[in-house]
């Protein structure tokens, strides 16, 4: 088991290194001097421009810049964000917890909802509920994230003003609430974005889980369970689901990129101050280091996510666990 973990960690490290090269290329893909956004600002005198270029070693040959870039990366420095006048690592560091909160809640919620829908469908396989749910999940898979977010915001925050119109906290009253009040306020603001992301992500989980369950049903140990006198519901929930969850765990690993993209749009529309929102803002203001920092951290999150999913799978499947 440990050997397996070690190998996977090494693989993850290589992937992150390659992503660093890709992001380095992305920076230098941009036309002109990557720091032109501030340097060409006439207010900044030529001398300041020279010092900044020297500091970032832009006047040195490309390979040397790359070494310096990777060195900085390993120390966790992601360069300087111009739109915020602060180091990128600080900006993203502040934004990351919000994204992790949103994605974490959405991950748990979408898998719970997805599995529940799959269970209902398989328990009533062949009936109209099964077909109806099939149709609905197909609809949500096909729905573009921003369109659903737009509809959710419109229907649940404007026509039926149940939820706030975005933001992580109520900008006006948050700090004056009691500690409990603050938590309620934060949850109240988290509700709609998280719900939208859950709806988006749970559709594919439901379809995937339903297929896994249907694969498991004809197997012999299900018949043995029936022989033992278990009710259909117990068979489904205890024996079938427990086995059908294994492929779903691998799905967790694969779903991170899609979840991050979904979070990306939802943060933009619900003004959720996470990493996605910061990167979109940075794109508008051509703040390359922040955009590239976002790509970097995004891919690290995805890599760690799939690594965690693999480890969870190894732990969950006894056949793999105690090799």
């Amino acid at each position, binding site marked *: 088991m440990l050997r397996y973990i070690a190998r996977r960690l090494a693989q993850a490290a290589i992937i992150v290194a390659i992503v660093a090269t890709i992001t380095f290329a992305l920076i230098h893909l941009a036309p002109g001097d990557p720091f032109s956004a501030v340097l060409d600002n006439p207010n900044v005198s030529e001398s300041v421009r020279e010092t900044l270029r020297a500091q970032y070693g832009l006047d040195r040959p490309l390979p040397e810049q790359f070494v310096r870039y990777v060195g900085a990366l390993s120390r966790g420095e992601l360069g300087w964000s111009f739109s915020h006048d602060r180091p990128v690592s600080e900006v993203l560091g502040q934004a990351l917890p919000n994204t992790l909160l949103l994605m974490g809640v959405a991950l748990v919620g979408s898998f719970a909802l997805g599995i529940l829908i799959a269970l209902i469908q398989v328990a009533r396989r062949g009936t109209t509920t099964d077909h109806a749910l099939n149709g609905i999940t197909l609809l949500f898979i096909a729905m573009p994230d921003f369109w659903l977010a737009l509809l959710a915001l419109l229907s649940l925050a*404007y026509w039926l003003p149940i939820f706030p119109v975005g933001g992580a906290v109520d*900008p006006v009253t948050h700090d004056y609430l009691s500690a409990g009040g603050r938590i309620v306020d934060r949850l109240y603001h988290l509700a709609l974005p998280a719900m939208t992301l859950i709806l988006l992500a749970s559709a594919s989980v439901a379809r995937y889980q339903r297929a896994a369950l249907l694969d498991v049903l004809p197997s012999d140990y299900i018949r043995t369970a029936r022989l033992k006198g278990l009710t259909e519901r117990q068979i489904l929930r205890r024996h079938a689901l427990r086995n059908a969850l294994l492929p779903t765990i691998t799905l967790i690993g694969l779903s991170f990129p899609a979840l991050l993209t979904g979070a990306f749009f939802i943060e933009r529309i619900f003004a959720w101050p996470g990493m996605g929102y910061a990167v979109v803002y940075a794109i*508008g203001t051509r703040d390359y280091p922040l955009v590239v920092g976002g790509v970097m951290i995004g891919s690290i999150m995805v890599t760690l996510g799939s690594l965690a999913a693999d480890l969870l799978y190894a732990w969950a499947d006894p056949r793999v666990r105690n090799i």
Partner: protein
Amino acid sequence: MATMRYVGILCALLVCGCSTESSRGGSSGGTLAISTGGDPDVLIPNLLQTTTGAQIVDMVYDRLADIGDSLNVVNDRGFTPRLADRWTWAKDSMSIAFHLNPNAKWHDGQPVRSNDVRFTIASTKDSTLGSPAASVITNIDSVTTPDSSTAVFWFHSRSPQQFYDAVYQLPIMPEHVWKDIAPAGWRGSEAAKHPIGSGPYRFVRWIPRAAVELVADTANYRGAPKLSRLVWSIAPDFNGALTRFLTGETDFFPQLRPDDLKEVAKHKDLRTRTFRSLSYQFLQFNLRNPNDRDRPHPIFGNRELRRALTMAVDRAALVRSVYDTLAQPALGPTLRVYPTTDPNLQQIPYDPARSRQILDSLGWRVTTRDSMRTRNDRPLRFTISVPGTSQVRVQYAVLLQEQFRRVGVKAEIEKLDFPVLVEKDRKRTIDATIGQWNTQPSPGAVLGSWGIAGSRSTNGNNYGTYENPVFDANIDSALASVDLAKRKAYFTRAYQTIIQDAPAIWLAEPRQIAGYHSRLDIETLRPDSWWIHIPEWSIPADKRIARDKVPSASPAASAPAQPAGQKTP
């Protein structure tokens, strides 16, 4: 005698509230949440360029004197005392001495001294800072400080607008906060993040992309403002800001569009108020080649071609489509509200047929299948750059694109983000852009955006580099003459020159619509800055809602506890 009549007319035209200094007592409390679609750029009086930034700075800082609702720019009529409680003109009127109000204090408790005034003017003129306000205080030579409570402004030349130039442009900044920071470092400095002023509101907090919060300076030398807290709620874009206002999350939204009025009407506790604003919109051509500023622009360098393009656009329909009845087609780089503007300035007519003839005569023939014109196989094509977040300007661009298409001209649209657009404007690397100037009470400001000075200086606003000495000369002589009739004649001749040169297609003089919550008693919304009377706005005690009942003491966060109840003299 002439000046008296002059002032009277201006006052009548401008819905002058002439509200006397209303007493600052009465019930204080309540929170005003202003909905805005983007962060302020920077909270430094002589560096800011966004209206949100100006709103916050005008609440945190003070000017020497306030222009008053009459917006009179000649001599010091209508100006009411602020930091300066009295001022005296030199006999030869080459200098004005301002006496500072002894009670005026900075929010950190330091007294306001004349050095602060001298420092504010000097730092703005310092080229290493590169302040955009530098170009509007060119007439001020320097400021001397004979004693700690007197600041004397020295001018290069006598002008009817001397006092206006000295007082209107810049709020006064505390020298002891800024003098040790190098100009290049101002933007990123701690002082920029926690501004200290002398105005009616203290700075509490700025959470990027979320909110800016100010709290009433209860010990202010001019008495505490009525509203105890101001919050700018920052939404990701215009749509987010509008929705937050419609759902009652915020109380005030100054940028309603005609199309939104139907929505606002659905909410019983929301009101709207239309008010005149000092802004005009235009499609600006870059007369210089974006890649090489010394050579003329291949298309817009030609005056006849610019006139042809102007004739292709049905400006009246365009303005009606975007603004319904809430705007008039702009006459030129000026406003109908200026007394010196002749309402029936001669315009280039809407005449697509004539426009096609001119384009043909200039050698731009229709050859390609999609009926687009080319000349020695270069297509008649240019890009219109607009800020992506401004729905109005995007709408203009798409409408103009179609009008140009009908005469065989291909216009492409490039949506950029506001700061990037400003950068490109400054570097003159744009073909054409849809601009809007929130100009000043003084018609003379037109030199900054259309005169040669504005074109040549690195941080001038004449992004199209339109340079016509006849235009500049007429404006200068207009500004120099005191007699209204002569002044108007010079302005009219200048406007006719620039209109016929067509450096831009003048679009609209929009009136602004503000939406506000019914519990708010709001004062006059002044055209140059609707927010200037916020300290006198109030919320009656019986109409207070949840966010008003927030304790007036500043939150647990940074700001030092304010000693409550200190009586002002």
